[in-house]
């Protein structure tokens, strides 16, 4: 029972992270129709900036997270303007391949910036635990879930309640019509990249909090948000929150129970559980739980 509660909570923490990264993918996909394969590198860079503001400058954790997000938002907008804007009107897979190139570049830059020294994000959670119903829970897992959901809620409110959010949704719906209504579509693209990069940065800070430190090797964790958006539907924020939690919990439960009940699947099997779920989903419902079914015509 304690095992179950502990792994559920860990799963929800992980799920919060995946949801955050999933929303980062969805926002860019909705605005520009591109899957941003550079997200892992944006996440690591975000963690790096958060860590630097915390350690080198000595700011408190909350402030350094916000500053890290702001820096990444600016970097995201620059990337969009320089590399993605010229790709408007080209096939989506060409633009996606551009982000693969950006991924390689940013990953090396991040590795270089982090260097060989240990960099932590200086978070207040660390390895603190609280006891609930006899189960020992890490506060970081609870913090991950709460902060991620809060951030997604803020983005959701921004999209549904503000004038700019309305403009962004209009752009996602129909670019040419929004252009005709006087919306600066290019600026909306930039804004989407900014928000997405900031969310990736937050995910990076939360991922590194409570662990050993910022490393480029954890970048590939962000790719697990791809199964999340497949399960949730490429264009649905609600879908990626629910799918993120499902996949996080599934992964965590596998980590707890698979070595005991199915050892023949091998060590670290939990790492590939999201991808297996993704393949099953693609077989049954290719457009995901909440995605819009693609209508094709000649």
């Amino acid at each position, binding site marked *: 029972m304690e095992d179950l509660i502990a792994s559920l909570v860990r799963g929800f923490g992980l799920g919060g992270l995946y949801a955050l990264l999933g929303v980062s993918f969805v926002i860019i996909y909705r605005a520009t129709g591109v*899957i941003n394969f550079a997200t892992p590198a944006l996440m690591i860079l975000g963690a790096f900036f958060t860590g630097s503001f915390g350690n080198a400058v000595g700011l408190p954790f909350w402030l350094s997270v916000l500053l890290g997000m702001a820096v990444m938002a600016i970097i995201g907008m620059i990337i969009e303007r320089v*590399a993605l804007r*010229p*790709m408007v009107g*080209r096939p*989506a*897979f*060409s*633009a*996606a*391949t*551009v982000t*693969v*190139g*950006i*991924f*390689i*570049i940013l990953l*090396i*830059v991040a*590795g*270089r910036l982090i*260097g*060989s020294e240990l960099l932590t994000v200086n978070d207040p959670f660390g390895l603190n635990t609280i006891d609930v119903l006899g189960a020992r829970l890490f506060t970081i897992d609870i913090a991950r879930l709460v902060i991620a959901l809060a951030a997604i809620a803020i983005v959701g409110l921004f999209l549904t309640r503000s004038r700019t959010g309305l403009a962004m949704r209009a752009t996602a719906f129909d670019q040419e019509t929004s252009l005709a209504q006087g919306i600066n579509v290019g600026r909306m693209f930039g804004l989407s990249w900014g928000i997405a990069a900031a969310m990736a940065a937050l995910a990076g800070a939360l991922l590194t909090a409570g662990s050993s430190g910022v490393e480029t090797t954890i970048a*590939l964790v962000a*790719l697990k948000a*791809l*199964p999340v958006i*497949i399960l949730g539907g490429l264009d649905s924020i609600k879908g990626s929150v629910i799918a993120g939690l499902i996949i996080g919990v599934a992964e965590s439960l596998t980590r707890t129970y698979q070595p005991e009940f199915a050892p023949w*699947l*091998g*060590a*670290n*099997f939990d*790492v*590939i559980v999201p*991808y*297996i779920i*993704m*393949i099953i989903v*693609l*077989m049954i419902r*290719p457009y995901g739980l909440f995605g819009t079914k693609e209508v*094709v*015509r*000649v």
Partner: protein
Amino acid sequence: MTTATKDSRKTVRGRPQLFTSYAREMSIFNTRVKRNWAIVGILALGILPFLLQRDMVALLTTVLIYAIGGIGLNLLTGYAGQVSLGQAFFMGLGAYTAAVLGGESKGDVIGLGWDMAIWLPLAGLVPALIALILAPLAARVRGLYLAILTLGLVFIGEHIFKEAKPITGGAGVGRAPADPVFLGFDLFSNQTILGYRIDRFTIFYFATLVIFLVLAFAARNFVRSRFGRNFAAVRDRDVAAEVMGVSLLRTKTLAFSVSSFYAGISGALLSIVIGRISPETWNIFLSIDFLAVVFIGGLATITGSIMGAVFVVLLPKLVNWITGFIPGAGGIGDGGLLNVFELQTIIFGLLIVLFLILEPRGLYGLWLRLRNYFKAWPFSF
């Protein structure tokens, strides 16, 4: 037929772009210049290893192997329009098929020690068969969904490779690759042929060259066949293609299988050049390498894939050579601003981005521009 060929031969002399028969226009070298360039290229590939250092010969072998894998991915991505990040997985399958069938048993690791004449075709066929099984799934999804699906395949594949210890030797340990003994003749040992001593790198280079030429010509022929036209139709407008009677499932399955066949052969040969293969070799970054071969070389051109392979494999050497002239740049370790490895990876990423933005037709497009410039010289058009 005979008279038609004769007539077209005559007209070709002065006006290379004038085709008087469809057969002539569709032929594999439809202009004389193309044929001459191909002959020059093949001759150059035959002579080069005797002029180069030993390590350069090994590098040239890697170029040919990358070209094989690149052509395979280009058939799928360039011709059939299906973006795949799964190339590394199928290369791994090919490499381990070859290693199990053609390698030696050692401890727990299986190796049957069969001849290359058996394991080489199977190294292509087994991945093709796996692709055939996966294809119905891949055919359901299009565009970026397929890229994500194949990305998942690479991660799942890496896990399986790490766990299947009798086949792969396990994570971090690895195993020896297949022995390239073709009909009793060892292609990776020093040999004396007609009194000349030829070192093993050169021997293996020529073996790879033959395989490469066969596969490259096969691909060139394949894309101008009915199936190649089906590929292009599916790429350009899949719904329209289906309406016109091109079976989407069958075409995508074929593209996926043929591409995996090439990937498997490429993986098997690459494992021999590497010398010892560990499950970590077949990761997402290898797939990105091949994506770069295709996109830098140029989509939907076989020649472009070969150019792309030359470029991607030789880039590290080139960067190494150039940094020698720039003081301060590229010390090994933490000395300079960036070390050589970091610099070459950044240049690599930058080139993918730049080519896609500025010249989507890739290196082949650059070659076309250069050619057209000199064709009209001294006029600008």
